[in-house]
């Protein structure tokens, strides 16, 4: 089961199978079974990966497969994975299952809903396993339009505005990525002035520093839009809050990670010299995003907006880790991507379930939920605690690693940035505890709440799956760091090559 293309084919086939289902029940079951198979395939890939590594296989990428696609442009369908991609793949398959379970009771056009959700996961898997820039870009754009339709059709509030804004901003980001990729392509030469899209080959090429200075910002900003890089984050709050629950989970849990992964794998890895030159700018923007995001969250009265703004802040940690360019910081950034993906999916899931029952997301209208729906109340509190970085949960591991890694950079700017980022945790604690205290604890504010039903089996299963993953990373972070440390090492070596040659 180590054929990586299964990761693309399986969700694709599931999506097509959904189209041929007759009734609601069949649709849900097909989607669920398909997504469970995805998890099985990804887990088996994870275990065979550990097996291969234990057996002493030291090649950078494992389970590679390549087919020539467009010979004229030297475009290949080239896939392969390392520890970082596996982490992302596991994250994706967990969130897909959780998302499908949470949207068990979608009434409006269920067939199309699950079809688009699964299509979105095709894009995500394809992106994480691609080692060819063209294929990578193909999957990056592939994942945008399902989001537009999911928000536009099933969303709430000002959904038309939000979905259009999201689609255009993400496409704008990918347009920059496109130019960056093409510029990279034309700056490579693998003999006989043949260019290449192959990421591993490009990393061996010595692209001139002048070219890198132009290409790096294009790639970094382009991918940065996906991960809500300040000041291109404005799609995130609107998009998240208008989206239906499962789409928010996918958007924050998977889609924003596409950007982070791209910033790391494509921009930083392929343009090491430029990454050093622009490091200060990334750190600056990331710090602004962290501070601005957390203070903006303080002002929100809607639970979903709150989580959307806090996502901006948390994705800032990812960018901060990448911008610091030390091994620990980059490891932290990867952990933060996974941790934030799981945590925010759980958060959005909990908010969605609460909204479905209480019909409001306004903090001041909610109260005392723990007394009537204890399970959901606890889920919400766990998500919140993970968000504020409580030890034992994944958020702590991730943020701690980023801070430790950042502190290794002695420059003044980096020191200040690290201190500010640490300080933002306090703000996080304020808004999380305030919101949790108001909604979950306290007196019941509305008589209607007395008749609420607690989570059903599907919701419980989804929440527990996410919580187990969060706890797994939080309690035993070492196996996770082991998984990715060899690959962050390679990225770091490429980066130091950048310093030496300068």
């Amino acid at each position, binding site marked *: 089961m180590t054929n990586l293309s299964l990761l693309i084919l399986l969700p694709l086939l599931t999506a097509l199978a959904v189209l041929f289902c007759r009734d609601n029940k069949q649709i849900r079951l097909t989607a669920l079974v398909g997504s469970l198979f995805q998890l099985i395939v990804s887990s088996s890939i994870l275990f065979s990966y550990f097996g291969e590594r234990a057996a002493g296989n030291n090649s950078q990428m494992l389970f590679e497969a390549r087919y*020539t*696609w*467009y*010979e*004229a*442009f030297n475009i290949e369908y080239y896939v392969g994975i390392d520890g970082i991609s596996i982490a992302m793949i596991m994250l994706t398959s967990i969130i897909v299952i959780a998302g499908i379970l949470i949207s068990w009771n979608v009434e409006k056009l269920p067939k199309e809903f699950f079809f688009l959700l699964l299509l979105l996961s095709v894009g995500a898997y394809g992106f994480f396993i691609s080692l060819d820039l*063209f294929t990578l870009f*193909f*999957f990056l*754009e*592939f994942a*945008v*339009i399902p989001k*537009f*339709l999911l928000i*536009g*059709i099933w969303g709430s509030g000002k*959904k*038309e505005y939000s*979905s*259009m804004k999201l*689609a*255009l901003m993400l*496409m*704008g980001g990918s*347009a*920059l990525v*496109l*130019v960056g990729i*093409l*510029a990279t*392509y*034309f700056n490579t030469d693998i003999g006989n002035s043949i260019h290449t899209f192959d990421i591993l080959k490009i990393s061996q090429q010595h692209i001139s520093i002048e070219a890198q200075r*132009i290409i790096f910002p294009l790639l970094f900003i382009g991918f940065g839009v996906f991960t809500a890089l300040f000041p291109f984050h404005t799609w995130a709050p609107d998009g998240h809050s208008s989206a239906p629950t499962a789409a928010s989970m996918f958007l924050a849990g998977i889609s924003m990670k596409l950007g982070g992964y791209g910033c790391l794998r494509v921009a930083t890895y392929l343009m090491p010299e430029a990454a050093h030159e622009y490091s200060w700018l990334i750190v600056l923007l990331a710090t602004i995003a962290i501070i601005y995001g957390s203070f903006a969250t303080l002002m929100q009265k809607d639970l979903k907006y709150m989580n959307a703004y806090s996502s901006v802040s948390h994705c800032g940690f990812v960018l901060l880790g990448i911008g610091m360019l030390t091994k620990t910081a980059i490891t932290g950034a990867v952990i933060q991507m996974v941790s934030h993906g799981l945590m925010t999916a759980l958060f959005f899931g909990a908010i969605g379930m609460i909204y479905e029952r209480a019909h409001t997301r306004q903090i001041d209208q909610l109260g005392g939920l723990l007394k009537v729906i204890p399970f959901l109340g606890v889920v919400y509190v766990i998500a919140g605690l993970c968000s504020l970085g409580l030890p034992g949960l994944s958020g702590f591991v991730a943020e701690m690693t980023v801070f430790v890694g950042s502190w290794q950079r002695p420059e003044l700017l980096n020191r200040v940035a690290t201190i500010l980022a640490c300080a933002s945790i306090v703000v996080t604690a304020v808004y999380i505890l305030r919101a949790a205290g108001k909604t979950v604890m306290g007196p019941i504010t509305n008589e209607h709440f007395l008749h609420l039903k607690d989570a059903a089996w599907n919701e419980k299963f989804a929440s527990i799956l996410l919580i187990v993953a969060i706890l797994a990373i939080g309690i035993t972070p070492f196996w996770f760091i082991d998984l990715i440390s060899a690959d962050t090492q390679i990225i770091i070596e490429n980066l130091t090559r950048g310093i030496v040659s300068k």
Partner: protein
Amino acid sequence: MNTDFFILMKSELSLLFIIFLLLFIKVWGGIKNNTTLLHFTNVLLLINLVLGFFWNVKGELFSGMYFTNDAISLEKSILNFGTLIISLQAFDWLKTHKHLLEFYILLLNTLLGMFFMISGGNFLIFYLGLELASIPLASLVNFDLEKRKSSEAAMKLILSSAFASGIMLFGISMLYGTTGSVAFAELPKLISGGSLQMLSLIFIFSGFAFKLSAAPFHFWTADVYEGAPVSVTSFLSVISKAATVFVFISVLSPLFINFQNSWYLILFLTIVLTITLGNLFAMRQNNFKRFLAFSSIAQVGYILLGLSSGTTMGTTASIYFLIVYIFSNLGAFGVVALVSSETGKENITDYKGFYKTNPVYSWVIVLSMFSLAGIPPTAGFFGKMFLITSGASKGNYILIVFAALNMVVSLYYYLRVVKAIFIEENETPITKLVGSVPLKLGLIICVIGIIITGFTSGLYQYIMACFKF
């Protein structure tokens, strides 16, 4: 004259045969039933298309005035293919039309003119073909005989077309005056780069730009597209444009090889202007045909971007894009034709809630829109990508950033259609439509084309093989 003549000119001869056959049927009046006639014509067109893939040889006739090779045969097959799909999609409109045969006779005459234009070995044959292609087209535009808008459109087309032809002729005559030749094979060597020749380049280019509806010669497009019957509009936007691009590749690009810098500058300005104006105007349109008109102007800008590279890569990418464009544009036009002939509605706002009543047709339009916008996994993504990649080979990244960002602008108006169909509510949506079998067949071909073409690189390789002389 020997057997070579028949084989070399087989595409023209088979078209001529069909034209005369239809004429005889008209005069003789044997078949009165429109449906039978339409099926009959479609079968003829299919045979004509298939014929285009056999006995393709390279050669010239009439001392070089007419020539053909693999690339030209491929180009003719592409035109034949597009015409067949349009004919299939026109079924619902034509089955009750009084002047069915005239429609086909005029349509095929236009096609014949385009064939001569592509195969022309010198400016005289080329110009003859051009006029043969334009004049019947103007009468086709007027084919909704009782509609005033239709006549207005035809008038606009013929007047501005004549003007453009005049300018182009002026350019040709200046070229002849300075070099003493009109043969494409000799001209590139004789053109040395004088200012008079520069002027003639600009004049000839303007004529082409008019046919392509590239800015600033695009003003006729929207009005004509709106006034013409939908099938004619699709012919104008796909086949006419493709034919002009083909000539552009084989004639114009090699002709001015000595003017490379000014040539690139002209193309650069035209591309920027065309994409900008097309996009800006397309955003504001509510009539579906006008909307597609302006969006097709923007698409032309991207085709020119590919051509500006001046390499085989760019040529191949442009031809590839044109095929993809045929699929995507005809996919949209097919549904618009059906809706327009059944309900008379042509506005984008009328399509609100279309998904509730016609889910399958909605997906066809939406797929076409995605393909036009260049979103994966549709073929349009690959088409645009290759155009932009070949454009980037010149290293002019300002242009590439501009083109890439304009894809986002164009996404806005394509998504507006998607939004109307899927998201917006409507109390009186278009009722459930049942299209005829040929129309559905045409749409199925388009959808398969949109989905398959990109994933399989076979078509691209085939085009490239045809263009490697």
